[in-house]
């Protein structure tokens, strides 16, 4: 009932309190009905709050899963890339394959001059070194070129003696490790007849090979610097 109606009723029922009371009871009934609806809405509202919390939790789970999937994708992409690089390396190695016998022969040539390992009979005090010594340098071609004026002073040059496989007089046997037959001791005893290798200094071609290998930038003996 609207306010104007109420006013008119009030005026008309000024002397009729019973009508007023009836209106009040009617209002109370309507109020009770609205309260019932509000009570139900309150319950629905509580359920909606629970659903909202559940939706938030699902959102968090989805974000967590998304983060983990992203991480897994990154790891897998890295693994795939590395695998592809490895496959490329394998293909490249297969194309440039070298016979194992060639590699072993080459290794023997490099190590024949005792540059990678001391001779088996080497003891402290042995003047032999894995690098050319002062005496050997002087007895080499460069030394000979600069010593032309002193040729014949000593009767023979140390370089000639080494080329012939004999020791110079200064290195005559005085110690257990010295021997007059250096040619046999220049190679490891168990490998001297393998692969038909010749000791360095016996053959000019071998000397050239050794010199080429020692100056070659790709040889392992010169990689130590």
């Amino acid at each position, binding site marked *: 009932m609207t306010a104007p109606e109420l006013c008119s009723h009030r005026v008309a029922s000024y002397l009729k309190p019973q009508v007023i009371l009836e209106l009040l009871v009617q209002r109370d009934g309507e109020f009770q009905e609205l309260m019932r609806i*509000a009570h139900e*809405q309150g319950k*629905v*509202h509580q*359920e909606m709050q629970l*659903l909202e919390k*559940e*939706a938030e939790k*699902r*959102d968090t789970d989805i974000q967590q899963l998304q983060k983990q999937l992203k991480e897994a994708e990154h790891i897998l992409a890295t693994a795939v890339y590395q695998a592809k690089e490895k496959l490329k390396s394998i293909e490249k190695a297969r194309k440039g394959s070298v016979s194992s016998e060639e590699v072993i022969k080459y290794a023997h040539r490099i190590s024949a001059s005792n540059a990678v390992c001391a001779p088996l009979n080497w003891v402290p005090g042995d003047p032999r070194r894995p690098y050319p010594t002062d005496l050997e340098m002087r007895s080499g071609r460069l030394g000979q070129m600069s010593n032309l004026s002193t040729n014949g002073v000593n009767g023979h040059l140390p370089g000639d003696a080494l080329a012939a496989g004999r020791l110079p007089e200064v290195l005559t046997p005085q110690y257990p490790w010295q021997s007059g037959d250096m040619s046999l001791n220049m190679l490891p005893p168990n490998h001297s007849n393998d692969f038909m290798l010749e000791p360095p200094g016996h053959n000019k071609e071998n000397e050239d090979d050794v010199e080429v290998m020692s100056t070659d930038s790709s040889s392992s003996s010169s990689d130590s610097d």
Partner: protein
Amino acid sequence: MDKDSPDVHQELNKLKTKIQEAREQIVAMPGIGMSPEQQKQQFENLKEQVRTKNELLQKYKSLCMFDIPKS
């Protein structure tokens, strides 16, 4: 009963107080900011949302992205 008697006035004052308290409590009641129909619609939307998210999560958890070869 005399309508101007103090008892009637007292009872009327009590009624007014109770009505005022009822107003305050009604304002604080949750969930009555919208009509029952609107609330029902929103409730259905929320239920659908939660159901969809549950299905999505279940789908991704059980999804196998790699074909594992039978060796």
